[in-house]
């Protein structure tokens, strides 16, 4: 369910034991009185299988839907965040958690902002950030208080008055926040952009990347069909030089922070064969559409890439597109 946290052990199995004494190969129990010979079971190879077994269940600490889980750098604790609260857990203790952030107002009618994502600092086990539906990020230090209602830093970009509309707040809502591997930057994803923030500068991001700005003129329709509430994730590559996030039509985007180049790729079986190099895609925003371009009106908004991941050290990425998981890697020469 959306309010329980489970810890799973994921393991690979490529051998299985054969030759049990008390049960036959189908698993049926043998009659002990019929056994005349004892043997030692042996391990024989089998097809590789990945299995996940639940090892811990952390329940009953959340009233609202959990939006984030983040493991602390101490590997002993982790936090889970829902719309209004963030709880700190110890892996070994499943029936108790510490509440470290609580933004629930006394009168729920006064609720105007919720927590949307949270993450621990990659090295400092007392520091974490959480983002809100109003486009703000708060950095908190657990050493200052048990209940981190007061932030150590508050990141917010001033609103651009020329772009103001009734949808401004909705599209500023942050759907994901991620520390860089270095711990010096945070990246946030809102509906139309990805922003990189320097922890030392709270008043505006240092970089802003447009994911699909052509949707800015469609916000009304996207509000109507609820796509404007889609929550996209964003990820850093291992060296923090490239950032990636998903979009619609099974597209995902990568931005190189150094060269300032960006690319749009597609995760789709119809449009690329396995092991083939992905062809960059382009969305045509008006005027004449070139041969390989896709017009904004042809985009399929039911094909959204919300979840992406980047291997911490290799150039291997995972992209979730509807019911399929795609794994891509750098071309191997």
């Amino acid at each position, binding site marked *: 369910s959306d309010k329980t946290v489970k810890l799973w052990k994921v393991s690979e199995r490529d051998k299985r034991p054969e030759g049990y004494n008390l049960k036959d190969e189908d698993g049926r129990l043998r009659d002990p009185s019929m056994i005349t010979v004892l043997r030692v079971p042996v391990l024989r190879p089998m097809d590789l299988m990945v299995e996940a077994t639940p090892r811990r269940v952390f329940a009953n600490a959340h009233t609202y839907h959990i939006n984030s889980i983040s493991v602390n750098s101490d590997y002993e604790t982790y936090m889970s965040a829902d719309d209004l609260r963030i709880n700190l857990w110890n892996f070994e203790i499943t029936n108790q958690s510490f509440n470290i952030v609580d933004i629930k107002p006394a009168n729920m009618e006064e609720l105007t902002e919720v927590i949307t994502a949270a993450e621990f600092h990659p090295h400092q086990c007392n520091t974490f950030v959480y983002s809100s539906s109003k486009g703000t990020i708060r950095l908190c230090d657990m050493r200052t208080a048990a209940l981190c209602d007061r932030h150590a830093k508050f990141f917010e970009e001033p609103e651009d008055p020329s772009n103001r509309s009734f949808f401004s*707040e909705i599209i500023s809502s942050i759907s994901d926040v991620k520390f860089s591997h270095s711990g010096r930057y945070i990246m946030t994803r809102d509906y139309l952009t990805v922003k990189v923030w320097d922890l030392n500068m709270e008043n505006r991001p240092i970089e802003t990347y447009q994911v699909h700005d052509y949707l800015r003129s469609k916000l009304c329709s996207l509000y109507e069909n609820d796509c404007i509430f889609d929550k996209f994730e964003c990820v850093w590559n291992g060296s923090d030089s490239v950032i990636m996030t998903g979009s619609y039509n099974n597209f995902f985007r990568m931005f190189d922070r150094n060269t300032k180049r960006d690319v749009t790729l597609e995760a789709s079986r119809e449009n690329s064969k396995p092991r083939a190099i992905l062809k960059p895609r382009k969305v045509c925003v008006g005027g004449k559409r070139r041969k390989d371009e896709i017009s*904004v009106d042809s985009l399929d908004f039911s094909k959204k890439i919300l979840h992406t991941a980047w291997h911490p050290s290799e150039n291997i990425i995972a992209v979730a597109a509807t019911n399929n998981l795609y794994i891509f890697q750098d071309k191997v020469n």
Partner: protein
Amino acid sequence: MFVRGLKRKCFDGEEDIEGTLAGIKAVPSYNLQRQSLLDMSLVKLQLCHMLVEPNLCRSVLIANTVRQIQEEMTQDGTWQMINAQNTGQASLDRLVSTDILCRSSRDQAEGKHVPAYGTFNKDFESDQAQDGSETMSTASSVQAPRNLQSNMWEEMENPQENKGNFQKSLDQIFETLENKSPNSVEDLFSEVDNSYYDLDTMLTGMMSNTKMGHCDSLETFSSPTNTASNSNCKSDLNDLDHIVEILVES
């Protein structure tokens, strides 16, 4: 009150829509747009309320949007202009409002419409006369979010801010509506099938089957009622009349 019974197209980015709005003023006013957005938002909030596991973030964002619209309308004095005028004339404007709702901002940028706060006042004054008739529906709907919010967020017993008898009457209306059997609520959603859950399924179906610029699923959704759209509008209007009567009496 809810103009969802009609065939709608999302016109973002489409080149030319004037031809399809024959007989209706081709340039929609900012007030109409705003009203449509308000209506749509209220419907969304209502539906949130009906879900077993409502998405709090989404509800908060929609409620904030409604509040923004409401505040802006309060500043213009729009929502205070309640009058007992027959809604018949307003109906055509209202029916069209969702058609023009999704104007592209290309049009907006070209100055045909003025969605941004900064340039709003200019258009408002010129449209005030025309839009007066629609304000009562605005008035009846702006107060809805407070009640919806409180119900949705499980704080039903808390008294709401008192904006006078008007607020109370509206609360009573919505409470009554909620307490009635599904059939009477469905009168408001007159184009919808016979249960909450069908509406929900339909809308969920809409969400998972969307294509920009065509709103195919929306058209499918409303097409069985096309021939009956007039009577649906009438029942909408009857409800609106009823609500207005109550407001005026208070």
